[in-house]
């Protein structure tokens, strides 16, 4: 119960921070950190795959509603949540005990977590910005947006993880 409450709190705080602060950041006109992804990246593995997907969808929808993006974040978040188990398995193989853990530096180690977070963020941001631009006519700006934003998001994610680890 306590865990559920803290997860709801994380959900709300990340949504508010995203909507009111991070959405206003357009570094060099391109890069916007999408930190709300942190919720999807680090939700404990005891949460079922379907619940993960549903909460990711809900979070994306909240972001969509506030930033008038009509389902872009919902779609990207759902996809990321759907692929999360595969992504984690790609970089982190647990030795058989199968205990559910919370993805993060603490459980996975820095290297594995960075690689996992990088790929997940890249995937999510690629989808977000592709849907937003909805054209490959501006490949360079699109690439810069994806790359810059991924970098920013990843930096914030690592910063939070670092602080949490202490």
């Amino acid at each position, binding site marked *: 119960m306590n865990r559920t409450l803290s997860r709801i709190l994380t959900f709300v705080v990340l949504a508010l921070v995203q909507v009111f602060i991070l959405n206003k950041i357009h570094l060099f006109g391109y890069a916007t950190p999408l930190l709300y992804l942190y919720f999807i990246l680090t939700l404990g593995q005891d949460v079922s795959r379907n619940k993960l*997907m549903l909460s990711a969808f809900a979070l994306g929808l909240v972001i*969509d509603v506030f930033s008038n993006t009509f389902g872009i974040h919902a779609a990207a978040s759902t996809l990321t949540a759907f692929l999360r188990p595969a992504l984690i398995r790609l970089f982190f193989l647990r030795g058989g005990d199968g205990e559910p853990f919370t993805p993060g530096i603490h459980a996975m180690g820095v290297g594995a977590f960075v690689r996992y977070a990088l790929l997940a963020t890249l995937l999510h941001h690629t989808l977000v910005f592709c849907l937003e631009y909805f054209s490959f006519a501006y490949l360079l700006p699109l690439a810069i947006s994806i790359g810059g934003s991924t970098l920013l998001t990843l930096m914030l994610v690592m910063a939070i993880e670092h602080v949490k680890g202490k």
Partner: protein
Amino acid sequence: MKGLLEFLYKHNHWLLFILLEGISLVMLFSLNDYQGSVWLTSANTATGSVLEVKQRVTGYFGLQSENERLAEQNAQLTAQVFGLQQALDSTALVRLTAETVSQWPFGVVPATVVENSTGKLNNYITINKGTADGLRPDMGVISSDGVVGVTYRCSRHYSLVLPILNGKSNISCKVRPGESFGYLEWLGGDTRTAQLRDVPRYADISVGDTVVTSGHSAFFPEGLMVGVIRDFEPSADNLSNNIYVQLSTPFAHLRHVFVIQNAGADERQELRDMVNDKRK
């Protein structure tokens, strides 16, 4: 059939995934131009009210600069009004030429009251501008409602103002229409009433007449609002009238004031000092 159901159950997350992605994409591709979709945008009541609360909160962060900007603008406008009034007077009184007008190159410095008292006999007002902002003692201070007082002591960033509500205050005023002169004094008590002294008995005055600065003192240009005559009676010696003036400046809640940098004041003061020196 059973196999199919089993398959579906086993892969139910695929179904959910497809469903959620379907919803997202339908929203993305159909609601974009759909007028009825307003509930899914930041214009709906829930998000709107959240955003309004946010605006209400963040709005306060800008109030300070917004206020300063308005005060600055006010100062400019006030200076313009002075200029225009002078120009108007000079055309009305003939012979006063552009040269005369140029003798009133008012700089107006907006300031904020940081400390204010009204309860004592000798009240002072502290404002947040000082010599660093070009203020010196003996500069007129006004508010948007009327005359406030005269700067008295200036530190680098603050100044003490001697307001009308101070026993030492003594501002040269005149009554309009009628153009009779007198000195404005305050004898304590009611913060909205002061006395105009030395107005001769024969002067044509009546209740409701306006009291404005005379322009005789170097602190204020002519014609700044001071107050309105509320009552008058003959003085004890029967030579003049004691006029009770309803002050137009609300001293009890003074917030923004303007300091008049009267360039002519220096010159007059120099002249006075010179005369005084010679007398010694």
